[in-house]
């Protein structure tokens, strides 16, 4: 598979279809990988693929430094490909401006990442070239995909509050969560605006709740649960639980899974006259 990937990358760079390949490279230890940006055909041997390729490389599509490199080919797993669909639907990238090297994936991480436990996109749903075998994607039932949340949803109100306060208390406002997120692409984040100052930018417990709730809410109906925010969090806040809860509500109420069907309308930029309103008096 690695050979096929390198060969394809070499071909794309040689015939100038793309000017850069975003891929995974070997890290400092065998259990690590790091992103590599390959611009010369003779460098393709740096590319690798293994179960430690956990990251979502689509985040580099939003960065000035990597955008400067020209049209990219990007190595994506099934989950990462969903990010690409969201980015296209939100007019952040054009389909023709990115060459998608999909890889079929049986799950990454050791131990297996949480996101892989209920994965139903082992083969990317969008790609120009598929590396690896094309498998059949069978959509998993709703309950199974959101099973991780049950434990937390069943807590009492007080326990929930205490659990989350304990988590948010740790937040040091480093904003790693939004920097890594491929879908947090605003040039100026709400937390950077100070007239008025909606979110207290200091690492005060008060601002921590507003920040973490707002960050999650801005991803409602958009987040594909790649868990990158949670992975990079230096103080281990389980941020993806919030994202997943929002994804669950969006799917339950609007029957929408972000990045799943490219023809679906974005959940939060449309509406249905028959939307749920049981909670409205």
């Amino acid at each position, binding site marked *: 598979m690695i050979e096929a990937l390198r060969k394809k990358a070499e071909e794309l760079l040689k015939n100038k279809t793309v000017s850069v390949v975003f891929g995974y490279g070997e890290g400092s230890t065998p259990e690590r990988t790091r992103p590599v940006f390959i611009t010369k055909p003779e460098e393709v041997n740096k590319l690798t693929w293994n179960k430690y390729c956990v990251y979502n490389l689509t985040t580099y599509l939003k960065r000035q430094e990597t955008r400067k490199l020209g049209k990219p080919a990007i190595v994506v797993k099934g989950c990462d490909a969903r990010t690409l669909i969201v980015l296209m639907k939100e007019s952040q990238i054009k389909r023709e401006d990115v060459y998608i090297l999909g890889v079929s994936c049986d799950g990454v991480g050791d131990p297996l990442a949480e996101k892989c436990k209920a994965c139903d996109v082992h083969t990317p749903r969008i790609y120009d070239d598929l590396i690896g075998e094309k498998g059949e994607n069978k959509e998993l039932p709703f309950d199974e995909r959101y099973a991780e949340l049950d434990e937390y949803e069943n807590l009492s109100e007080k326990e*929930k509050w205490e659990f989350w306060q304990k988590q948010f208390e740790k937040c040091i406002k480093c904003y790693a969560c939004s920097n890594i997120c491929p879908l947090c692409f605003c040039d100026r984040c709400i937390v950077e605006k100070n007239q008025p100052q909606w979110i207290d930018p200091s690492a005060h417990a*008060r601002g921590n709740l507003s920040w973490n709730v707002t960050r999650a809410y801005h991803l409602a109906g958009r987040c594909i649960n790649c868990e990158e925010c949670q992975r990079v969090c230096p103080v281990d806040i389980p941020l993806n639980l919030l994202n997943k809860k929002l994804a669950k509500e969006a799917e339950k109420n609007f029957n929408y899974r972000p990045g799943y069907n490219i023809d679906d309308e974005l959940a939060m930029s449309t509406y249905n*006259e028959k939307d749920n309103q049981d909670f409205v008096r």
Partner: protein
Amino acid sequence: MSNETTFEPRIVAFLCNWCTYAGADLAGTGRKQYQANVRIIKLPCTGGIDPLFLIKAFERGADGILVSGCHPGDCHYNSGNYHARRRWNVFKPLLEFCGINPDRIQFSWISAAEGGKWVETINSVIDAVRVLGPFEGYQKINAIGPEGPGEGFAPSSDTTGCECK
């Protein structure tokens, strides 16, 4: 809290200009009585209410929030309340997931003709929050650190009366 024995909830109501605000106005001109625990914030449309407004209200000491606008189909801007409803559909469960009681954040449709419904709704919101007691969780957070509670919506010793001059 200055007086623990008589807790009076602070409710912030975000109302749309065209329906609920006019409905509340109608309640006033109709001389209908309701509890004075509510601070009304008039906005052009529920569709323009960023959920951040609601978090901010809690942050500044609100015990409960009511968001109210035109009935579906009646929006002055055609679809503002439909978009708002979508947001509430995900935002309310998110707050509940974080451990905020659902009674502290309520939503309603009240038209310009429904002065009676306004009185009923706001009274029941206030009563529900009175039972829940002060939103101690958040107020405790505010008290942490050298800054103390945020300014602006600061609790005053007299929380019942209207401060209009």
